[in-house]
């Protein structure tokens, strides 16, 4: 039902992903943007504040802030305050290492902040192997500081081959900490390209996660447009890729893309140093091509109404095309497992 309204074209995104900096004090092996050192041409404070004015004028409801590690930006709180003064909801994705009780108290005062703390395993060894030594303990410490506050907090896990078996334990951990769990899909972008083969979940793991997710109603997943539970997503009817329809991404230097996983030259919709955000949203040919995108090869699939062809970003990174259907979709997992079984039998 709601897809129909989205297909008509919204005046602006519902939410905007803003990769505010490439600076990060970690070097996670799956990082979608290969963060570490700041980009040389990141938006200045004045440019960032101008963007806040623009998205306020465009009536964007929420900004999802990531990076890099956003708290690495010295002016981050100033930019956040500008969002909150304009009534814009902010959701901060952080590794938690720079959070302390004073900072959290300042954030909690606004009532317009959600925080996602990244943690990639229920065990220290699993998490630290992906994110770096000490990251598990730092994330747990941050979550314990956040849990008793008014800030809606979640732990965010990227599903990998290494932690797939620990998701139920992470779920239990989230409950014991008093926060929610959000599981994001691992996509082969940024540093994830280099570590794709090692970290990618197997078809069996993806199917097992899907089955578990359908029974775990309050777990959120990392969609491009929202952080929604399975039930909420089905209730809204929003089962399509939201890139350029419900969401967009601004990179550290003000380049604008359909989504955070497609921050590369072929998908650059414009630059905030050359056009306003609204101009890019209204007129970008890249954005219009995503709005016209139909995954015809998937239309006969029994799952089509549930996924509409899946994630174009995964299709791009694995097959160098966005219109060929998601190579890692659940239906293909089933097919792959059957083919592997057949091969094994033949051998």
């Amino acid at each position: 039902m709601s897809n129909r309204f989205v297909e008509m074209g919204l005046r602006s995104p519902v939410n905007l992903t803003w990769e505010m900096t490439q600076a990060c004090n970690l070097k996670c092996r799956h990082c979608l943007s290969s963060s570490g050192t700041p980009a040389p041409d990141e938006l200045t404070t004045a440019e960032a504040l101008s963007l806040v004015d623009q998205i306020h004028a465009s009536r964007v409801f929420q900004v999802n802030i990531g990076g890099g590690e956003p708290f690495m930006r010295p002016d981050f709180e100033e930019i956040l305050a500008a969002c909150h003064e304009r009534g814009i909801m902010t959701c901060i994705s952080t590794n938690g290492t720079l959070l302390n009780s004073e900072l959290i108290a300042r954030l909690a005062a606004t009532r317009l902040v959600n925080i996602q703390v990244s943690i990639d395993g229920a065990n220290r060894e699993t998490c630290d192997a992906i994110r770096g030594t000490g990251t598990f303990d730092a994330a747990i410490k941050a979550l314990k500081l956040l849990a008793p506050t008014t800030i809606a907090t979640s732990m965010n896990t990227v599903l990998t081959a290494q932690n797939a078996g620990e998701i139920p334990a992470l779920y239990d951990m989230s409950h014991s900490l008093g926060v929610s769990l959000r599981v994001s899909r691992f996509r082969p972008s940024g540093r994830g390209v280099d570590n794709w083969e090692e970290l990618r979940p197997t078809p069996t793991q993806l199917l097992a996660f899907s089955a578990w997710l359908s029974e775990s109603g309050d777990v959120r997943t990392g969609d491009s447009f929202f952080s929604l539970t399975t039930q909420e997503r089905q209730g809204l009817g929003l089962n399509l890729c939201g890139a350029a329809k419900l969401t967009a991404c601004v990179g550290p230097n003000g380049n604008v893309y359909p989504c955070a996983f497609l921050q590369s030259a072929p998908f650059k919709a414009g630059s905030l140093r050359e056009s306003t955000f609204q101009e890019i949203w209204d007129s970008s040919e890249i954005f219009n091509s995503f709005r016209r995108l139909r995954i015809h090869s998937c239309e006969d699939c029994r799952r089509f109404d549930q996924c509409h062809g899946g994630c174009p970003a995964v299709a791009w990174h694995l097959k160098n095309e966005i219109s060929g259907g998601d190579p890692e979709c659940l239906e293909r997992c089933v097919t792959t497992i059957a083919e592997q079984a057949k091969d094994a039998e033949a051998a």
Partner: protein
Amino acid sequence: MAAAGNKLHPACRVRSEKFGLLFYDLRGPRLLFAETGALLEPDFFSGNEPVDAFLGRLDLRDRNKIQGLLVKLREKGYLSEQ
């Protein structure tokens, strides 16, 4: 439950779209798509104009449509309780 008027809950936002109005609840977050066409402006939900005065200017069909929307918004918590 206390009656509700037409003032948006502080955690909710609304903006106009081609099809009508798009509501957003920060607490979810949740979206609500209202196919109201040009019948309603987002300002209506500032609560400054009494609902009855606004509805009185509409024909029966539109009045029913807006009343139905207000009931839905109240049920889903998009409006402040009075």
